[in-house]
């Protein structure tokens, strides 16, 4: 007997279309990989270890949704029930269908619509201990599992807060069509199977059989006709879902698999829009987890969060404003269930906007730096908070360090503010200039007071010298007994600067150092989840008022446990918080400097300086 019916066609062609579309995309992405990455792929495939670990992650992330579980158990269960449930329906359905067909080669639609084709196979409902009975039980159970997720998905529409989400994504038409079909698939299957089971009096499991019996009983129309209609409906929604999938957010399902393999093969994101980035963009599920954590929401910016930005990139339409409206604070990156490097992606798009206009650095061309053991690079933001420079230099002088304050006069900027604006070429001029100066000093260590500088020195300079943020350096000085400390600050709250914390994962050193001079009070939303102070150099598209709202929101959280002092390790954070904070805002270096016993303090005349570059008296040309 040929197991075929016309209704399977929408499903069949939908599936075929989807597989071709996914295959085309995969082919395009893989073939567009740079040669080096292609080598990584071919060698990766030959390493079973890499493949197995990738498969393991695919299972954990794409089916179990481990990261979603961590965010919120309900959200995790919802996603797992759909993904894992559907997978089980397919796998177990195939096994079940083999039992009936007795062959390993079934038409792809056969297992999906199995209950339609086997309704005349005489296996009675009460034979639960037979193989078909066990299968029926399991298949009904799995369907129930998926449907429970569907119920949660409905509830989430109304009560997203129960799932740990205040704000959910506003979706486009294609996404809504796909979503509607996805939601209809399993109720349709339930109805089709139930009506069939009810009409023929067998073939159903513990759920579908009683439900089918009841439905047949209460439905006035001929049940055979309704059952058949339901099978058509089931096939249609499956078909429409498959056809829309490549154009909707559900493309993330197959893409995430490819992305996980790419990562396991060691493919790195590039500075330009590469095929890896294209894969990342398509792997975004638009779950909207990034929306709630975005500090810009406090400033009533609701259209530029990562989910919308990435959607724009995928649709090849991102207004410049959306690309620019981001603090580059990295908070969304930390929670992204797919692990998309949202900041890097934003910077790639900013680079594309770079006009290439040259910057004027000629006045820097006579740089010359004297030898020293340690370079102190305060950073231009620290120049705006001279107390931090004074404290850091005071500490280094006290410790007897032979240092040079490199950007006191010779240079102006580390280059990162330009890079955050996408002006990499202009930044590279500064970077090359600074590298030359650094080399001239023959120093073995570079210390900076600014996390923005710290990050760029580590990531972009590629220099053979140790780089430390002053919180790490001062901690080393204290630990080696070079700084005598006395006195203790009471109740200090520590704010993690974005660039130091999330940016370079420096969480412990500042806390350990502060612990030596202060009693720390607890802070909600710390470390990876810390709020941006609002002063970010990543954004110029918002008003000062909007910045202030973000600053106040961050302060509110920091001051919850009523600290007497707010400590931070970034001059920009200090400067941003100071005008709004009811308590004193101090840099970690200032706190340590104040904890040095007074008799031990160096006087300002003891502070070394660079007489050679001592300010050329300059007046305005006549």
């Amino acid at each position, binding site marked *: 007997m040929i197991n075929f019916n016309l209704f399977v066609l929408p499903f069949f062609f939908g599936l075929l279309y989807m597989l071709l579309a996914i295959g085309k995309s995969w082919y395009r992405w893989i073939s567009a990989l740079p040669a080096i990455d292609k080598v990584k792929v071919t060698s990766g495939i030959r390493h079973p270890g890499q493949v197995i670990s990738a498969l393991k992650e695919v299972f954990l992330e794409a089916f179990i949704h481990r990261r979603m579980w961590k965010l919120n158990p309900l959200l995790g269960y919802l996603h797992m029930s759909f993904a894992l449930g559907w997978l089980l329906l397919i796998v177990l359905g195939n096994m079940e269908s083999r039992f009936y067909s007795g062959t390993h080669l079934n038409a792809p639609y056969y297992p999906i619509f199995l209950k339609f084709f086997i309704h005349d196979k005489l296996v009675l409902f009460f034979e639960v201990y037979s193989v078909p009975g066990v299968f029926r039980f399991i298949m009904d159970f799995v369907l129930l599992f998926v449907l429970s997720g569907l119920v949660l998905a409905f509830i989430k529409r109304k009560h997203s807060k129960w799932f740990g989400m205040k704000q959910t994504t506003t979706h486009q038409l294609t996404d809504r069509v796909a979503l509607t079909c996805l939601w209809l698939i399993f109720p349709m299957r339930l109805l089709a199977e139930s009506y069939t089971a009810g009409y023929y009096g067998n073939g159903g499991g513990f759920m579908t059989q009683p439900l089918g019996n009841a439905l047949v009983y209460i439905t006035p129309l001929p049940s055979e006709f309704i059952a058949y209609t339901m099978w058509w409906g089931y096939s249609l929604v499956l078909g429409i879902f498959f056809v829309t999938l490549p154009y909707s957010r559900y493309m993330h399902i197959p893409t995430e698999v490819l992305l996980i393999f790419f990562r396991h093969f060691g493919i790195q994101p590039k500075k330009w829009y590469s095929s890896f980035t294209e894969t990342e963009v398509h792997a975004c599920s638009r779950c909207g987890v990034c929306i709630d954590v975005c500090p810009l929401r406090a400033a009533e910016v609701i259209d530029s969060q990562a989910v919308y930005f990435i959607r724009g990139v995928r649709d090849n339409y991102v207004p410049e404003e959306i690309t620019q409206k981001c603090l580059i604070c990295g908070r969304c990156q930390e929670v992204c269930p797919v692990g998309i490097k949202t900041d890097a992606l934003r910077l790639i798009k900013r680079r594309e906007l770079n006009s290439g206009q040259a910057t*004027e650095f000629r*006045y820097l061309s006579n740089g010359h730096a004297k030898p020293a053991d340690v370079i102190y690079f305060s950073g231009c933001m620290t*120049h705006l908070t*001279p107390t931090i420079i*004074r404290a850091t230099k005071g500490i280094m002088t006290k410790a007897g360090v032979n240092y040079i304050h490199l950007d006191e*006069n010779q240079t102006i900027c580390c280059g990162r503010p330009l890079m955050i604006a996408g002006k990499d070429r202009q930044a590279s001029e500064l970077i090359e200039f600074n590298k030359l100066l650094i080399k001239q000093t023959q120093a073995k260590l570079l210390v900076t007071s600014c996390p923005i500088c710290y990050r760029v020195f580590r990531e972009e300079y590629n220099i053979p010298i140790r780089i430390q943020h002053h919180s790490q350096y001062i901690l080393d000085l204290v630990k080696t007994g070079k700084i005598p400390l006395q006195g203790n600050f009471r109740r200090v709250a520590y704010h993690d600067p974005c660039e130091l914390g999330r940016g370079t994962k420096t969480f412990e050193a500042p806390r350990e150092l502060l612990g030596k001079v202060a009693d720390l009070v607890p802070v909600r939303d710390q470390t990876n989840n810390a709020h941006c102070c609002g002063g970010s150099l990543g954004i110029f598209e918002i008003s*000062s008022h909007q910045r202030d709202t973000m600053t106040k929101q961050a302060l509110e959280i920091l001051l919850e446990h009523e600290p007497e002092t707010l400590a931070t390790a970034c001059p920009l954070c200090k400067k941003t918080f100071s005008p709004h904070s009811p308590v004193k805002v101090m840099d970690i270096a200032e706190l340590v400097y104040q904890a040095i016993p007074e008799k031990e303090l160096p006087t*300002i005349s003891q502070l070394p300086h660079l007489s050679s570059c001592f300010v050329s008296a300059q007046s*305005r040309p006549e």
Partner: protein
Amino acid sequence: MKQRIIIIGSGVAGLTTAGVLAENGFEVVVLEKESRIGGHVRKWDRLFPNRRPANEVMEFIEKVLNSSVDLRCGVTVNGVIRHDEEFIVLLSNNETVTGHALVLATGFQLFDAHKKEEYGYGIYDNVITSAELETIFKEGKQLTTNEGKTPHRVGIIHCVGSRDEKVGNLYCSKVCCVTGVKQAIEIREQLPECEVFSFYMDLRMYDRHFEELYYEAQQQWAVNFIRGRLSECSENPDHTLILKAEDTLTGRPLKMTVDIVILLVGIIPDPETGKIASMLGLPIGTDGFLMSGDEHIKDNTTTIPGIYLTGAVKGPASIVNTIADARATAQQITSRFMAG
């Protein structure tokens, strides 16, 4: 029965209003939070644009105050109650004052220069404010560095706390530009060997004889004007100061050592004004200054009948404009009560 008018604030605005109202036959009560009357101008040395002593103006204003003006110093307003057509003001010393009209002449405060940390006020000893320079002149002292040396170079920084979105003040304080030019001349006058460099965004010489003063500063006193906002100030070991700015006329960064930096601090609303405004329910503008009934044609009255605004409580104002405004306020009050 004489109508009684309560004036809060005894600066140029409050006292001028009081003087005219007293002349017009009102009983006037002036409330002052400081221990003596006179407001900020009492502390100034000489006034722009003609560098006449500030005392002369204060003496003129105080001269017209007669016995029907009741001056109460060292008191602040704890509360205001409107009762029928009267205002009952509760004072910090637990007294109450009742009046038929209330004039808010609470003026302004100077911007706290500590807030521009990059300019080093409160960090470097030789960074002072324009108000502190006035005090030095007023006391007849020589301008010296904190170490007692005669300065060779002085930098004057315009727009400190004004037209600066980062400190939350978008507006222009109006009087600092010409004050800076006046003080530059005065420094050159006192110390002919000392060079003066003024860092400005643009010089707003809007009123009569201001532009002339600016010309005089350049031509007769050789004051150097550099168009560029100061980006930062740092200190050398010898306590001299390094200024970094961009000379926007030549388009190049500029660095310079000076001995003293003078910050032309802007004008901000007095916090006391905000308190009184919220007691009364008066609208406050986005700049923090009070809103009058209409910015063009009802600039002395408010949305509440019987409450008047005068002087810098409505935003930065020069002395000449404040006096004119105070007289207009007094006149409005007179017409209101004398007509009936």
